[in-house]
């Protein structure tokens, strides 16, 4: 992982407060757990039917019946629970999920999120993303600031089919931490080595700056 991505992951880990129930999206978001202290009180949820996700196991020690929603062979910790898919999303929809950390194709300045479909190119289905994005108490995105072609992912409005409308509260990228406010995007922190000009150019919508020095991460 690049240094910028590592710092993004480490910074995003500070979203997790003691006692929370948290769902980490497939891929990079799952890495934030590596930045939590061993005895940190948190309950991780996997939508295939598990609370209390333990460490990922090497294949030779894996349990064939115990995976997370991304298919990784995970483990339990003391107090883990298994349940069916209805109970799993009951937890999501009924307000028991304090936080979800999701990937994104696009995030709009009003908090709209697009992360499941690129018409004509990528349409494998949304899985549980719509419910996570629509119902977690706090929805936070972790993504590269720009796509592979260098185009901004933080936009005035989404062009792709939405996952959820107006639900994203904050975005962690390799370049910045950005809040979604009633007035649009607001810069919270800048990654080391990124200038104001660079972040403005990489962001596809107006970006309010904090007063005084911009904190770094």
């Amino acid at each position, binding site marked *: 992982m690049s240094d910028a991505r590592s710092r993004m992951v480490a910074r995003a880990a500070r979203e997790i407060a*003691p*006692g929370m*129930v948290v769902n980490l999206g497939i891929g990079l978001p799952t890495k934030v*757990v590596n930045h*939590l202290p*061993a*005895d*940190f*009180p*948190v*309950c*991780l*949820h996997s939508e295939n039917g*598990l*609370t*209390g996700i*333990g460490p990922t196991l090497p294949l030779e020690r894996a349990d064939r019946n115990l995976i997370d929603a991304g298919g990784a062979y995970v483990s*339990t*910790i*003391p*107090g*883990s*629970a*298994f*349940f069916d898919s*209805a*109970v799993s*999303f*009951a*937890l*999501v*929809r*009924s*307000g*028991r999920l304090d936080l979800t950390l999701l990937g994104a194709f696009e995030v709009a300045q009003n908090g709209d999120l697009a992360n499941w479909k690129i018409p004509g190119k990528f349409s494998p289905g949304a899985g549980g993303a719509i419910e996570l994005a629509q*119902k977690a108490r706090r929805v936070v995105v972790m993504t590269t600031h720009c796509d592979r072609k260098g185009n901004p992912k933080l936009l005035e409005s989404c062009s792709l089919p939405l996952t959820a409308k107006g639900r994203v509260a904050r975005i962690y990228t390799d370049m910045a931490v950005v809040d979604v406010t009633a007035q649009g995007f607001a810069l919270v922190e800048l990654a080391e080595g990124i200038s104001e000009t660079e972040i403005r150019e990489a962001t596809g919508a107006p970006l309010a700056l904090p007063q005084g020095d911009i904190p770094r991460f």
Partner: protein
Amino acid sequence: MKLPDKSIAMEEVVAQIPDGATVLVGGFGVPGTPFALLRELARQGQRDLVLVKNDANEAGMGIDHLIAGGQVRKLIVTHLGLNANAIAAMNEGRMEVEFCAQGILAERIRAGGAGLGAILTDIGIDTELAQGKQVVEMNGRPMLVEPALRGDVALVHAARADCFGNLAYAATARNFNPLMAMAATRVIAETEELLPLGGIDPDAAESPGAFIDHVVKLDAISEEYGIVRR
């Protein structure tokens, strides 16, 4: 990572229930009724409560203490059969009663716990229970809209709990408990046995602790929990 500890003292947790709260109460007859939590609620005297429960227990037991104390503004229930006090309170206008078909009450609570708006069902069509309810056509057939039901508080009884709040139940003491344990803003579980983390097998955790806010260990299993000798 470690799962948080949610164990708490009886008096402290019941004190968090405000006047006017909607309170889901587990139990079907004696099994699964959280008698100790109900006694503490009677002692503390919160008023204007809306209770949701399968039945009204029997005279001198469980929620009858709350009804007798005038603490219950409204009761949502499937039947009052065994409690003449509750029937009298209803007939004399001291307590409002809303009757619900038993399985539909279960589904309304479950829908609340599942974050749904409502269920559509034909149960009760052609009966009094349909009166005043919103009707939706589905494929040309009328269906009743039965809204999801959530509590401000749920009081449930478990046979075993760990300190994260994973719950396991005994025999027919399940009934409404696993449903109510998902369907309130503040879920309070009393438990006969309180185990450390890991004390409940992940395959046996019927109510996942993520839905539970507080766990109270019962000091003793009082007579109310025992065999009823009529």
